[in-house]
């Protein structure tokens, strides 16, 4: 795998409750915009990868045929919250191996089709039969984290406050208003100690990125892009017994492998888009990614070291908590954010001189696994 791979274009629709839009209606506009943004014609596209979890059969083909894009491999990918980023990983893999020159990746999801409530999980799973829902999983993580560390519910609230402050700067975010610690703590309880404002919202959305080989990038005359420095995909490892819920092993191992592949460490990062589906997640991922010692993730959020002006800006987009989390779209949307940041197109939320970015999605409630899948990408401005 020697071929350099670049992200050369990105587009997305603002995440939100787009009740009148289908999967096709959500994804076609950013598909057109991403192709135009890179000056890519249909004939230039060698393969299409589409991440979604609830789009049904042939979601990618239903989208692509609207612009007459066909005749090339179109791969539909389901990996729960990692669907979109897994699709990017597949595109990267094909280009890195020299099998494909230009690939389009679509992440799309429509969660309003379920009419509200928690994310539908597989009814075949043992714990799903027992009534597990994702907020309960993260709530138990939070319960244990609060028990083992000096963290308080205020720390959980600070994560939400930061996310909403960042989201207020992002025209693509589902929530554009700020909230206070008091509002977060006083919100309706969902799964103790998590309140509604510590949980990501239900929404719809689509994001598209175009990936290209070094050669194709030159041929297309692209001057501003970001290089894929690492693309890592892991699946969860089962534990029949004890599991430390405060240390998400799948995310820690994926990040470790990504750092090694890119030859950088956490101290080099200018920004991270991480999987803050619930506020507790951000604290434990600080630790899993090596930004903080075990149990000390709270120092970063308390001291403002993960916002603009800090050591590393975590979730400049507002993250899942503010930008929203249409499951299959999130991984691609994170990479779109990294693209805009590293190419200097992030508007009011631009991080000065951003050079290195990490994106991270993980998910899938499955009994015995920390998470079903985890994808970590590292990007360098090019």
């Amino acid at each position, binding site marked *: 795998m020697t071929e350099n791979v670049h992200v050369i274009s990105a587009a997305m629709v603002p995440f939100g409750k787009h009740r009148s839009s289908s999967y096709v209606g959500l994804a076609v506009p950013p598909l057109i915009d991403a192709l135009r943004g890179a000056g890519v014609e249909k004939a230039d596209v060698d393969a299409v990868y589409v991440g979604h979890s609830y789009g049904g059969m042939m979601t990618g083909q239903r989208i692509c045929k609207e612009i007459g894009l066909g005749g090339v491999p179109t791969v539909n990918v389901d990996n729960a919250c990692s669907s979109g980023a897994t699709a990017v990983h597949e595109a990267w893999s094909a280009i890195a191996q020299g099998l494909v020159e230009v690939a389009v990746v679509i992440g799309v999801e429509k969660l309003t089709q379920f009419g509200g*409530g*928690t994310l539908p999980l597989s009814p075949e799973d*043992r*714990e799903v039969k*027992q*009534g*597990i*829902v994702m*907020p*309960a999983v993260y*709530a*138990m*993580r*939070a*319960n*244990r984290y609060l*028990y*083992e560390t000096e963290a308080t519910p205020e720390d959980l609230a600070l994560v939400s406050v930061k996310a909403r402050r960042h989201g207020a700067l992002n025209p693509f975010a589902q929530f554009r208003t700020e909230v206070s610690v008091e509002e977060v703590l006083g919100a*309706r*309880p*969902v*799964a*103790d*100690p*998590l309140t509604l404002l510590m949980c990501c919202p239900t929404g719809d959305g689509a994001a598209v990125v175009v990936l290209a080989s070094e050669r194709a990038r030159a041929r297309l005359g692209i001057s501003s892009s970001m290089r894929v420095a690492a693309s890592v995909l892991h699946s969860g*490892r*089962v*534990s*029949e*017994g*004890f*599991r*430390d*819920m405060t*240390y998400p*092993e799948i995310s820690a191992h994926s990040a470790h492998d990504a750092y090694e592949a890119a030859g950088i460490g956490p101290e080099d990062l200018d920004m991270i888009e991480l999987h803050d589906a619930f506020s507790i997640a951000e604290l434990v991922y600080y630790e899993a990614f090596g930004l903080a010692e075990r149990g000390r993730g709270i120092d970063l959020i308390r001291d403002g070291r993960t916002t603009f002006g800090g050591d590393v800006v975590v979730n400049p987009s507002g993250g899942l908590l503010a930008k929203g989390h249409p499951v299959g779209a999130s991984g691609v949307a994170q990479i779109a954010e990294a693209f805009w940041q590293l190419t200097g197109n992030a508007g009011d939320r631009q991080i000065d001189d951003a050079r290195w970015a990490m994106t991270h999605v993980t998910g899938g409630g499955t*009994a*015995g696994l920390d998470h079903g899948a985890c994808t970590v990408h590292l990007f360098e401005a090019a």
Partner: protein
Amino acid sequence: MTPTTSEAARIEASVSLPVPDLDADGLVDLFDEGPRLVGTRCDACGRTMLGDRIVCSDCVGTAVTRVALPATGVLYAFTRLHVGAAGVRALGYVDLAGDVRTLADLREDGQPLQPGLAVEFAVDGDDWYFAPSAGPAASAPAASAPAAADANLHANPHDEVEED
């Protein structure tokens, strides 16, 4: 291609058969000890797993034995769930002796829940749950006394974090 030998020609692919796992009765059954969570122990490596299973997830052995799981354990983490049809519902992960973790409904019985609490399995009609143990571990039913001792070891998970 070389011609197949007469010996090789007699070899047939084995027929993999589906498991009728949808017919399973759930996680609880009546054992000699009384109603207990159902477990499966691997005859080869001894790994115990929750529920009816056909293969060991550790050594991939298919010789397995159905067993009653211990009735006592230690609460690892819990939440009170406020969404869904059941009103407020207490749910948690319970670590049973022998290193088996189960998701379980919890009842508080007047004793506030917290991680590290010794809990006991109980059945109420069609429902099963764990509740804080009535007394110190020593007063646990005789049948599960060794399990209770093991469970106490699990109360300090920091010593046994397994990372690969």
